[in-house]
Every structure is written in C-alpha cells, then in structure tokens.
C-alpha cells in the first residue's frame, strides 16, 4: 500500500527491512521444522503447502486475470494422474514427472482457455464446472488410468533410513512451494502480471492498448493449470493412492473458497486462505457436520463483510496501526 516512486521499487520482491527480516525468520523456521516437529505437523504443513500452490494458481486466474473457474479439481486430477502414470508406467523419477505433470495440466488449461475467450461470467463458470466434472468421469471410465479402482502411487525414496516418509515429502514439497511462490510473485510484478490485471479490469480496453487478449487469457489458464497440476502430482505422492472420486465438485469449491476467503489478487491472500481451509476441517473433525457449516458460513461472511478477504483484513489492520491515533 505504499507509494511506489520508481519502477525498480515496484519490481522489488520484498518491501523494506521488516519484510526481509520476516522472510528470513520464515525460511529459518521452515528449514528447522522437519527435524523439530512430529510427523503429524509435518503432514499438515505438507498439505498446506500443496493447497497453497493450488490457491496461488487459482488466484492468478481468478484474482489477477478476472476469470472464473469451478473446475480446478480437474487440473488437480490431471496433474496427479500424469505424475502417477509417468512414475508407474515409465519409471521416471519424481522430479522429472512433476514438471511433466504441470506441463500436461497446462496444456489442458490452454485448451480450456480457448472456449473461455468467448464466454464470460456465469457461462464461463458453468463451462469450467462441466470441464472439471467431465475430467473425473473420463478418468473413472478409462481402464488405462486405473478406472474406478484408483492407482497406488510410489513415493520418493531417497534417504530411507535417515528420514521418515513425512520428512522426505516435506523436503520435496516445501522447497518447491517456496520456489514456485517466489516465481508467482515475480510473475505478478512482470509484464505478464500487468497484462492479466488489465484484462481483468477491462478486457476490451486492454486489447485496445495492445495487450493480446487471446494470448493473455489462454496463458492465464495455462499458468494456473500448471501450478495446480504440480500440486496434484505432489498430492498424489503425499496420499500414496488416488482415485477419481476424490477430485469432485466439493474439492473445486474448496479451492475457490481458499482464494476468495484469503483474498483475490494477492499471493499472500492465497496462502492465508489455503492455511485456513486446510487447518479448519482438521481442527473441527471431532464434530460432525460442523466443518461444512463453518466453511459455508465463513465463505458467506467474507463476501458480505470483507470482500477483500483475509488479506484485506490484514492490510486494514496494518493501516490502522500505522495511522494510529488518527
């Protein structure tokens, strides 16, 4: 929210001393965690990280580029299955399969972006809904993908003696998430990021000033799908078993909720939303039905009372304290 006085200021990743300090503390904590925390906490962090990736991807599409997607579970599934099949059938190591999973998902994202050029608003929402559900149905009816029975996914197996499987997954997931998050932040500050925002605010005007609408919209879908696909691949390894029923409408809705509750148009918002939506069902899991009601209530409350999401609250609190006592 600070005034930017030059181009280079706008491009900076972190703003000033405090943010750098906070970032360093976070890095140190994340580095120490696998050796200090129990497996349960590590699993939760892994899960949050995977959801962060999805939330960032979806936010790029919905918050920055102004599109809608109710079918991101489809990209998640594509990423998960691609990763699983490449490792199982071709024996590729996971660090080759993961980017491949992301790229395959990105290709599908591109394909979905093409009809999205013609559709806006509710029609786009329905189209993505249809896509998301069609993907899971098609996977379910194809034996090559394991059909309804699902696939057992092998996990990375380096340093098997020294580390538990959660610690190993942590070492794979968390550095990758940090890397991709920094990439996303850079992306939003770059030319592409500004093009996305221009398309969101007024696509016709954007085209008028020279932003290639076709390229930008399809790119938005592709990048978003890439992030979601990589996250899907990571999830497949985390769970060890995937089947089509997991990637359902509820999952797409949860992803969307992460983004809207966390804050549209902001990477920090995606992270906050992902953390909330991952921790809340687990914390409330000893009560029946309460998690559903709670999540629904939060979704409604955020849109009504705080459309900018959790990040909006955070910003407003910061401003309040900065400008206190006025």
């Amino acid at each position, binding site marked *: 929210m600070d005034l930017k006085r030059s181009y280079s200021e706008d491009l900076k990743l972190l703003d000033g001393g405090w943010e750098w300090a906070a970032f360093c503390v976070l890095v140190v904590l994340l580095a120490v965690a696998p050796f200090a925390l129990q497996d349960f906490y590590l699993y939760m962090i892994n899960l949050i990280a995977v959801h962060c990736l999805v939330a960032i991807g979806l936010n790029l599409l*919905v918050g920055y580029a102004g599109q*809608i997607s*109710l079918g991101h579970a489809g990209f998640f599934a594509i990423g998960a299955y691609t990763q699983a099949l490449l490792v199982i059938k071709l024996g590729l190591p996971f660090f080759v399969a993961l980017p491949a999973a992301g790229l395959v998902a990105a290709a599908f994202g591109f394909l979905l972006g093409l*009809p999205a050029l*013609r*559709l*806006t*608003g*509710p*029609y786009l*929402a*329905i*189209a993505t*809904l*249809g*896509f998301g*559900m*069609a993907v899971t*149905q*098609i996977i379910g*009816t194809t034996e090559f993908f394991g059909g309804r029975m699902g696939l057992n996914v092998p996990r990375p197996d380096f340093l098997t003696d020294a580390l538990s499987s959660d610690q190993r997954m942590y070492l794979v997931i968390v550095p990758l998430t940090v890397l991709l998050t920094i990439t996303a932040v850079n992306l939003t500050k770059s030319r592409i990021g500004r093009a996305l925002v221009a398309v969101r605010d007024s696509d*016709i005007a954007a085209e008028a000033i020279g932003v290639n609408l076709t390229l930008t919209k399809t790119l938005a879908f592709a990048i978003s799908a890439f992030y979601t696909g990589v996250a899907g691949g990571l999830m497949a390894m985390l769970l060890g078993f995937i089947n089509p029923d997991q990637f359902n*409408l509820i999952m797409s*809705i949860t992803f*969307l*909720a992460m983004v*809207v509750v966390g804050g*549209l148009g902001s990477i920090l918002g995606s992270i906050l939303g992902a953390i909330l939506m991952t921790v809340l069902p687990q914390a409330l899991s000893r009560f*029946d*039905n*309460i*998690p*559903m*009601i709670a*999540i*629904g*209530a*939060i*979704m*409604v409350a*955020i*849109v*009504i009372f705080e*459309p900018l999401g959790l990040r909006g609250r955070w910003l407003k609190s910061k401003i309040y304290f900065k400008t206190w006592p006025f």
Partner: protein
Amino acid sequence: MLGQLVVSGIAIGCCYAMIALAMVIVYKASEVLNFAQGELAMVSTFVAYSLMLSLGLPFPLAAASALLFAFALGAVCEFAFLRQADEPTLLGLIVITLGMEMMLYGAAGWIWGADTKSFPSPISDTSVYEISGIIISDQDLTYLATALLLAGLLFLFFRYTRVGVAMRATSQNESAAKLMGIRTQWINTFTWGLSSVIGALAGILMAPRTMLDPNMMMDPLLKGFAAAVLGGMTSLPGAALGGCLLGVIENLVAGYISTEFKSVVAFVVIVIVLCVRPAGLLGQEEIKKV
C-alpha cells in the same frame, strides 16, 4: 426398448425441467447462478417429511406447509445473505450461494441424520398403465402433469399479474424499473422465494423415487444446470425443453451405449452447448455494450 427409454426420459426430464425453471427464474432476475438451489429443495423436502412423521399431518397439508417454508427459506436467504453484499462481483455472488449450499447441507445432515429414508407419498409407487408395450407409471404422469401445469401457471403469472410483470421489468432493466416505482429489492426477495418453491416442489415429487437423504438433490441440481444451459439460461420455455431433452438423451446413451456414461452426458452437453451456442437452444444472445 426405444419407446420406453424415451417415455421414462421425458418423465425424469420433467423433474430436471422444474429445477432448471427455478434456476432460470433466479438467473433472469439477477444474473446469479444459484448453486444452493438443490439444498433449498432438499431441506424443504425434509421439512415435509418431518411434518408427516412427527406431527402426523396428511400429505397435502404437509406438502403445502413445506412449500410455504421453502418460500420463506428462499426469501430469508436472499435477504440475509445476498442482499447484504455491497456491490458484489459475480464471483462474490457465486461464492455466497456456494456458502449457503454448504451451510444448508451441513445443517440438514445435523438435524435429520445421513441415513436413507423413504418418503411417504400418496402417489402410488407401483400402479402403471401399459400402452402398446410402453409402461407409464402414476409417478411419471404426475411429473408430466406438474411440469405442464407449472409451465402454464408461470406463463400466466409472468404475463398477466402485476408481480409477474414487475419481475420481468426488473430483470430487463433494474434502474428503469426502480424509476417506474417498482420496489426492486422486494421483487428480488420474492424471486428467490418463488424459485425455492419450485425447487421444493421438484424435491417433494422426486423424493419417493430417489429416497430421502442429504445427498438427494446433488445430482439433480447438476442435471438441472445442464438442462438450463441446454435450453438457454434466459428462457423459461427453454429450461423446460432442455430438461426433457436432457432426460431423453441421458436415457438413450445409457440404454444403447453404456450406463457408465450416463452421468457424463450432462457435462458433455454443457461443454458442447457452451462451445457452439452459449445462449442455448431458445435463449437470446447477450449483447454487451462497450
């Protein structure tokens, strides 16, 4: 088998048509996709069930009370949740309806439990008529009759009653309607109530066939969506037509290709229609002013 598939398809298609009608009414009025439609209907159906079981009310009375409840529920949802949002974006509205859906689903599971129940209904489950080898049951005829009656009533309502005309005016141009003295906020609330009633009617009719549990309307909701897209989100006759067509197409695919693909049909239909003719069969193309 062809004739039987078509007839059964039309029968279930009438249910989809009713749900699609409910959705189109809301969409036409406020351009909001109502994802909570299914759960509103489901909760109202449960209310009817409770009235019949705990209070022993006869079916007509319980159903009528449930429909009134549905109206109130829909109106309250619009008033308490949708209206409160200041200048909401489309995404915001969708998220609100999704949030309402989750709350209603959780509440239904909490109050009534998740086990399958059978829904008592005066329409016989088994009496059928056979016409040249094709079997039509009492239920099928009820669906058809209700759908036709509903379509007819809605037609008359929108054309000849003051409220109906006011609703059409609001959906065409809200500011102009306000200037003409129409209280558009109340019209919106009424629209949601009406849509909820139609959905509840569909739910009460379907419950004897699909069994009563919190999940009962999830699939019909998506089918209703597909039907509305197929027929045109802005056209009421389109919704009805879309519903019947979808029912028939589904059955034909299931009968001649494979039952595995029956549920994919709805989504494939959505994707194809949106690629080829987004406005649907009977809908009008939207023209956006730059």
